[in-house]
């Protein structure tokens, strides 16, 4: 692989956004007990699917408040 430095301006924001999404969905999963479908273990695993996981959780899994 070539010089990693060349990719840094794109890797840093990419990392921040995808880790941000992961943390946001994990934080929501662990602070809420009820889910519309599935259980906590399922959603924790699903969250790790890159960017589609959190989308799925917030669209389907998140319970109503």
């Amino acid at each position, binding site marked *: 692989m070539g010089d990693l430095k060349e990719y840094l*301006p*794109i890797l840093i924001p*990419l990392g921040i956004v*995808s880790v941000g999404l992961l943390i*946001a969905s994990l934080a*929501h999963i662990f602070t809420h007990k009820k889910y519309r479908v599935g259980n906590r273990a399922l959603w924790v695993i699903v969250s790790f699917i890159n*960017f*589609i996981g959190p989308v799925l959780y*917030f*669209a389907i899994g998140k319970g109503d408040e």
Partner: protein
Amino acid sequence: MKAFIAFTKKEFTESLRTYRLIVLAAVFLLLGLMSPLTAKLLPEIMGSIDLGDGVFITMPEASAMSSWEQFFGYIGQMGMLALIITFGGLMANELSRGTLINLLTKGMKRQTVILSKFLTASVLWAGSYALSLAVCYAYTAFFWPGGVLSNAFLAFFSLWLFGEFLIALLIFGGVLFGNFYGSLLGCFGVIIILSTLNLFPALSKFNPSSLAAQTLNLLSAQKEAADYLPAFIICAAAAALLVAAAIAVFNKRRV
């Protein structure tokens, strides 16, 4: 009009509170970032695979066009998937929870609900798409300066238009089936049919789904705008028709 504004405000607040807005923006930001990166890394990754006996795959050097190729690939597939999942419950959730009953019995017109939801979803989609496009454009210009895009507006507009078509389809499916999975399955069903029709090259001129995948050829000037004009018109008309049909079905439907 007052009801429309109030309901639209409620829709935006809902999008904010259900994290719909922020998640959609984040996903499209990611896709915009990934496109130039994938374009840059792909030749290196492919080049490092040893097929045995020292045979390597050689790919042409990445260019601005390969970045846009990735962009169309990501937005046309992953982006649309994210869009479908996010807006699948737009109409269906309200119907299955019965949250519209109060508003409708107070005299709000039913068409207000549909039009307002369509407007909100369109704004969210346009915003996230613009974000993704801006990011991809900036990084593509940064990595491969001095490229010229032909038909840029039409090519990017076509992806957006296909997204609008999907939103209209999701709202119609939501009204028709009344639940999230019905709306989702209906949308996937139509996409599968349209993609199957795309196997026939003669039809792709008229097929809305070619707007999501093939208008890349406009950017590289391999095709002309006129080649996709029928698909544009059919896609826009289908979206408008679906919204009208959603209103008609919703007017007859028990809430």
